[in-house]
């Protein structure tokens, strides 16, 4: 009986959709049902994206406020819950400023184009059991490919603004996104190797069992892969400490310096939705996705994702920003070799027995970490002595 309730809670959205489709099926032709199914999924995603974005901004402001010993927004509604709506109204009513020399069409297109990939990647995120909008057999590749489009609108925005800060921001973005895409893709590979599939759903399913101990993060290569993936994800969605494209203290706001009102809001929205999907994919790959005991699957998924987002916010509340060459160096000289070695470790893991696998992979990873640190002495703080003289 209890299991039954759990099951229905778990399937609540799937059942609801199926029930509505069944209802429609009585008086509509087949192709309309297919269309209705697509429409329902996409409407759900289209509604989910902005809502998540709005409340992520609130969450971020609250958490950073608490980190800094202050309240954060608490005036609009209880606990500031209506703050995102107030912000939205403000954004809508703000004047839309276009610089005189701007390339008007491209300037207009950039914020529109940036939202599209941010929404499209929601398609392959497994929100819960049987709750992937499209269970593509190349799901992860789709995700990586689509999120690589994000560079383009940022370039468009930065170029069309005709602002030197924007231009520098755009250059930085392109360099950063391309560089971090490579270790990110390589960090995904171990999970693909272990689950032998590119489909996000299959990857989640291959982490079933043992009350969550089969999650990939509970293996040496899983931890390394997760750390590399998560750092790259932080860089991919331009969040601190990798927020160079919009470095406030240097480039004012980077590529969106010249955007205001709703156009700016769209950039902002894409950034937060990207953060959400990247965290969701990180949870899917290494934290077992929607797997988890007792609670409904979608709750597990959202819980894990929000936990990762909180870590991102925590980063933001703590860390200073990298410099551009250090950022590149970190991707190419540190994360990339680590991800490559991690692939090797995963292969070894697959072909050796249990105990030796643990020992060997931990050893290899530790040694390679140490070696990479030794090779990159510029990342390591110098030890200094400060004489006190009278």
């Amino acid at each position: 009986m209890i299991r039954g309730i759990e099951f229905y809670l778990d399937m609540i959205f799937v059942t609801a959709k199926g029930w509505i489709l069944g209802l429609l099926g009585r008086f509509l032709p087949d192709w309309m049902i297919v269309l209705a199914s697509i429409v329902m999924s996409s409407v759900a995603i289209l509604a989910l994206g902005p809502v998540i974005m709005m409340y992520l901004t609130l969450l971020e402001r609250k958490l950073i406020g608490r980190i800094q010993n202050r309240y954060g927004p608490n005036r609009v509604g209880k606990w500031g819950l209506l703050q995102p709506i107030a912000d939205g109204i403000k954004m809508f009513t703000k004047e839309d400023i276009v610089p005189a020399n701007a390339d008007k069409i491209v300037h207009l297109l950039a914020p529109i184009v940036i939202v599209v990939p941010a929404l499209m990647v929601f398609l392959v995120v497994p929100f819960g059991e049987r709750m992937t909008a499209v269970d593509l057999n190349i799901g992860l590749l789709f995700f990586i490919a689509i999120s690589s489009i994000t560079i383009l609108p940022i370039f468009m925005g930065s170029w069309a603004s005709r602002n030197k800060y924007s231009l520098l921001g755009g250059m930085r973005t392109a360099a950063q996104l391309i560089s971090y895409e490579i270790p990110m893709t390589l960090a995904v590979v171990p999970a693909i190797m272990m689950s032998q599939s590119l489909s996000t759903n299959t990857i989640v399913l291959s982490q079933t069992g043992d009350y969550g101990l089969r999650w990939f993060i509970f293996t040496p290569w899983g931890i390394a892969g997760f750390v590399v993936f998560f750092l790259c994800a932080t860089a991919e969605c331009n969040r601190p400490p990798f927020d160079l494209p919009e470095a406030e203290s240097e480039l004012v706001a980077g590529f969106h310096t010249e955007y205001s009102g709703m156009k700016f809001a769209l950039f902002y929205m894409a950034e937060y939705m990207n953060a959400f999907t990247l965290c969701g994919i990180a949870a899917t790959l290494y934290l077992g996705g929607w797997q988890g005991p007792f609670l409904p699957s979608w709750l597990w998924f959202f819980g894990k994702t929000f936990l990762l987002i909180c870590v991102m916010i925590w980063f933001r509340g703590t860390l200073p920003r990298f410099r551009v060459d250090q950022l590149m160096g970190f991707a190419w000289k540190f994360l990339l070799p680590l991800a490559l070695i991690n692939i090797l470790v995963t292969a070894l893991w697959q072909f050796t027995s249990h105990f030796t696998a643990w020992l060997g992979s931990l050893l290899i990873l530790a040694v390679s970490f140490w070696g990479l640190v030794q090779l990159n002495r510029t990342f390591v703080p110098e030890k200094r002595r400060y004489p006190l003289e009278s």
Partner: protein
Amino acid sequence: MTFGMGVLKGMIVTFKNFAASYLCKRDEGGIFTVQYPEEREKAIENFRNFPFLVYDGTPEKLRCVACGICERECPPKCIYIVMEMDNARKPARKPAVFDVDYGLCMNCGICEEVCPFDSIFMDHDFEVTTLDSRTDLVRHKEALSRSNEYFQKIRPLFASAIDQKRKAAEEKKKTPPQNTGGQALQPPAAQGLP
């Protein structure tokens, strides 16, 4: 120390502060902000904002005698005084006009220090926003006059010290008037606090 520990340590510090913001009180590392219009910091007696004029009893009995010392010493020249003339065209030893331009005043407190009649003091009221800074921020005599009780309320220690001093001077005046100069030269602030 291994690479990455510095960052982790920093993150632990911020996490501690995050937790403290829920668990601790204000002075023990908890949330430090004050929700301004509802909550206020406790008033600090020596806080000085804009000057006001003290009267004893009724608003007509201003202590100010329009001597013009504050007007002369005010560094940004934000005070404007016109002495009231009585019917005989003699100075009435009270101000007909006493304007302070709050928009110009820089809250230095020099008027308070130089006033020999204990008449002008610095107020605590800082909520003086107006729509038109050119006209509304110029406060006239009526708006500037505050009772001695108000003064007692906002700066109890200082005001009672002033009152005592005035009472002593009064009594001295009744007895043969002599040797008041040294007393008057004492800066009020130096005596203000025990």
